[in-house]
C-alpha cells in the first residue's frame, strides 16, 4: 500500500469542503458509525468513514476519484446517527459536486443517469421517463438493462410515451442556463413574467 506523507495535506481542498458543506471534518473521531449504517457500503470502494478520514488527511484526488461518491443515495442514515452531529451525507454530496467539477465520474452510468434526468427536466419542465431512458442509453451506449421491465410498465400506463410539458418550461430552461452561466438567448430575456 502507498505510504501517505502526512505533512502534505491539500489544505485548500479541506477549506473548500468545510466551506461548501458547512461541516467540520475534524469533529470526526472515526467511530465508524456512518459506515456501520450505510446501506451502500457493500457496493462502495471506500467506506464512508474512511472517506471522512482521508478528508482529514486532505487526500483530494483519492477521494474525488472514488466510486462511493457516485453510489451514495443520500439516505441520511450516516447523518442521522453520527455521534458528532456531522452531516456526513451533505459532505458526500459536496464531494460529488467537486468530483463532477473536476471532471471525474468513476461511476459513469450513475452520472449518465443523472444527466439524462436533468436534461429531461430542462427540456420539458418535468421528467419524461421514456426520454430519460433514451437519453441514458444514448450516453452510456448501453442497451437498456431493464428491458424486461418495459412490458410490465407500458401496459399499466406507467411509462408515458409522450412528454408532458408545462407552460413554465422555458423558465426552467433559463434556470439551467443561468446555472451554467450561459448567455441568455436574446429573444427570451424578459419574455415570461411571473
Amino acid at each position: 500500500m502507498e505510504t501517505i506523507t502526512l505533512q502534505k495535506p491539500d489544505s485548500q481542498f479541506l477549506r473548500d469542503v468545510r466551506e461548501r458543506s458547512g461541516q467540520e471534518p475534524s469533529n470526526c473521531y472515526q467511530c465508524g458509525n456512518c459506515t456501520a449504517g450505510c446501506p451502500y457500503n457493500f457496493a462502495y470502494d471506500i467506506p464512508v468513514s474512511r472517506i471522512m478520514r482521508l478528508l482529514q488527511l486532505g487526500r483530494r484526488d483519492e477521494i474525488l476519484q472514488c466510486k462511493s461518491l457516485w453510489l451514495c443515495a443520500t439516505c441520511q442514515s450516516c447523518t442521522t446517527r453520527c455521534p458528532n452531529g456531522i452531516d456526513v451525507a451533505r459532505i458526500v454530496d459536496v464531494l460529488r459536486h467537486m468530483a463532477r467539477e473536476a471532471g471525474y465520474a468513476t461511476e459513469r452510468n450513475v452520472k449518465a443517469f443523472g444527466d439524462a434526468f436533468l436534461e429531461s427536466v430542462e427540456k420539458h419542465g418535468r421528467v419524461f421517463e421514456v426520454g430519460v431512458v433514451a437519453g441514458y442509453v444514448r450516453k452510456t451506449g448501453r442497451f437498456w438493462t431493464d428491458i424486461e421491465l418495459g412490458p410490465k410498465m407500458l401496459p399499466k400506463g406507467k411509462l408515458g410515451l409522450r412528454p408532458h410539458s408545462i407552460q413554465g418550461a422555458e423558465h426552467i430552461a433559463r434556470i439551467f442556463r443561468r446555472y451554467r452561466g450561459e448567455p441568455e438567448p436574446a429573444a427570451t430575456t424578459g419574455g415570461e413574467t411571473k
Partner: protein
Amino acid sequence: MRIGVFVCHCGSNIAATVDCPSVAEAAKLFPDVVFATDTMYACSEPGQDGIIQAIKEHRLDGCVVASCSPRMHEPTFRRALERAGLNRYMLEMANIREHVSWIGKNKELNTGKATELVRIAAEKLRLNTPLFANQFDVTKRVLVIGGGVAGIQAALDCADAGIQVIMVERETSIGGKMAKLDKTFPTVDCSSCILGPKMVDVAQHPNITLYAASEVEEISGYVGNFDVKVRRKATYVNWASCTGCGLCMEKCPSKKSHDAFNEGVATTTAINIPFPQAIPKKAAINPEFCMKLQKGKCGVCAKVCPTKCIDFEQQDTIVSEKVGAIVAATGYDLFDWTVYGQYGAGRYPDVVTSLQYERMMNASGPTSGHIQRPSDGREPKRVVFIQCVGSRDKSVNRPYCSGFCCMYTAKQAVLTKDHIPDSDSYVFYMDIRSPGKGYDEFTRRAQEQYGVQYVRGRVSMVYPKGDVLVVRGADTLAGTQVEVEADLVVLAVGVEASKGAAHLAEKLRISYDQYGFFMESHPKLKPVETNTAGVYLAGCSQGPKDIPTSVGQGSAAAAKVLTLFAKDKLESDPQVSSVNQNRCVGCLKCTMTCPFGAIKDVKDRAGNTKAEVIETVCQGCGICTVTCPHGAIQLQHFTDNQILAEVNALCQPELEF
C-alpha cells in the same frame, strides 16, 4: 508606602509571550513602587526567598506578584509575606498567565496588558490595610450525603477518628451502585463480600447516625457551623420496631411493584426490603403499588407483622442537625439509553443495560445468577456488548467518557464465559480505556484467555430477526461494515450526575458543571475540596470514577474533614464588611439585603440605631456595601476606594508608561 513588584516567568509559560523584564522595568515608574524585578518561578522556594529578601532589604510594605491566577497561589504568597513579617493582606496579584500569556501570542500586546494589570494591582495595594482574623468555635460533627461506597468510606474514616457522623441516604438502604454489582474488576472478587462488612460497620458504629430514606431539605450556616434540616420520608413502617423479618413481603399480594434495586429486571412486592444485606434492614412500602394506600383495601402486612410496625398514616418528618463539615457523595445515575431509536429504544426485551446484566449475573439477583434472555428465558450463547452508549456522544449532549465502562464490559464478558462456557462474546468499542493498576492486563486477558472478540467501531443499529438480534456495526480496523447475530445485547450505558444533584449543589452553595457533576476547587490540587469552605466531595458526584478511586476520594474527603476539625477554633476570613459608625445613619438597608443575616442593629451610646457586622457570619460578598446609601459599610480589602482606584488606573484618558 513602599511597594515591591515581582514578575514571574513561570518558566516559559509566561515569558514566552510576555516580556517580563520590561514589565518589571515599567513598574518601577508607578507611584510608590520602590523595587521591581522579574523572577523565574515566583512560587518556588528560591522565588519565595527572593520575595522575602526583597521585603527585608527594601523595607517593603506591600507586594504585587504578577504571575498565575490568585485562585492558584494567593495563599502561597500570603504566607511568604507573613514569613517576611508583613501582614498577609498587603499582597496583590496580577494574573498575567491565565488572563494574558495563555490566551494570546502577540508579545507586544501581552506585555502592554501585563503592565496595566500590574499597574491596577499596585494602585489597589496602595489602599490596602492590614487585616486580622478572628477565631470561632467548630462543631465537630460531619454530614455525609449519599451512602454509596464513597460516602461509606468517608463516614467510617471520620467515625473511626472519633467524629460524630450523620449519614443521609435517599434510598431505603445504603450501598449505592456497588451493592448491585456481581463481581468487581480487576480482581473479580464478589462485590457484596467486600462492601457488605463496611455496610454493617456503618450500622453498628456508635459514632454514625444513619438516616436512610431521607434527603437534605435545607442547609444554612457556614464552615464549622452548618445547620442542616433532613427530611425523613414516610416509609409507612415504624423503623424503630421493624426487625426486618420479611414476613410482610412474603404475604403482600401486590407483587408487581417496580424493583428499583434489580433495575426493573424483575418486579417485587409493594412492601419491600430491597436486598437481604440491606442496611438498615427495614421494610418500606412503595405507595404507588400498595393496595391499601391506593384503594383503601388490604392491610395484610399490618396483620402479619409480628411487631405491629405498619403505619399507613405515617408522614414525612424533619430533623435538625448541627455539623461543622459536609461531604457530598451522591454518586451517579445511568444515562437513559432509550433515546437511541436505532438500538430499539427499549422495544426489544433482549437489549439490556450493563447494570441490569449485573443483576442477572448476581447469585442473589432475580435469576439467581443464571443469565437468561428476558424474552424467553433461554440461555444466550452469543452476547454482544456495545460500549460508549450515551458517552462520548455529542449528539446526545454527553461528550465525556464515563471512565469505567470499558473495564466493567471486559469484566462482564469474562464473567459471561464463566457462566456459560460455550458462549461467544463480542465487544464493540471505540477505544479501550483501562489506565489503572492491573487494568490493561485485565482487558488483554479478556481477549487472549477468554477469547472475547473486540471489534473497533460503533454500532449503527440493532434489529430483531426471528428470535435473534442483528447487530450491525463497523470494524474500522478491518475497514468495513460488520454484522453479528446476538442472543443478548448488553449496553454499556454512560454515567450521569445523580438525579437532583444540581438542586443539592444549590443548597450547598457549591458549583456544578453543565452536566450536574459537582465542581472541585482545583482539578489537580484540590480534587475533593469545593469553593465553599467546609464542603467536600467524594466519588462519582464529582465525575465518573471506579470503586478504588471513589474509596480513595472518600478517605481523602475524610482527611480534609479531620484536618479542619484538628483545630479547636477556626480563623475567620477578615475580608468581611465593617461599618463606619460615624457615617452610618441606621437605616438598616444593609440588614435587609445581607443574604446571610450577618448584620445586626445595635444602639450607640447616644441611643442611635447603628448597623454592626457579625464577623463570623459575614461571608464577604459585599452586597451590603453597594446597598448602603452613605458608603458607611465597606467590604474590607474590596472597598469602594480600592475598586475605584483600579478603575482610575485603567481609565485615565492618557495612560503612559
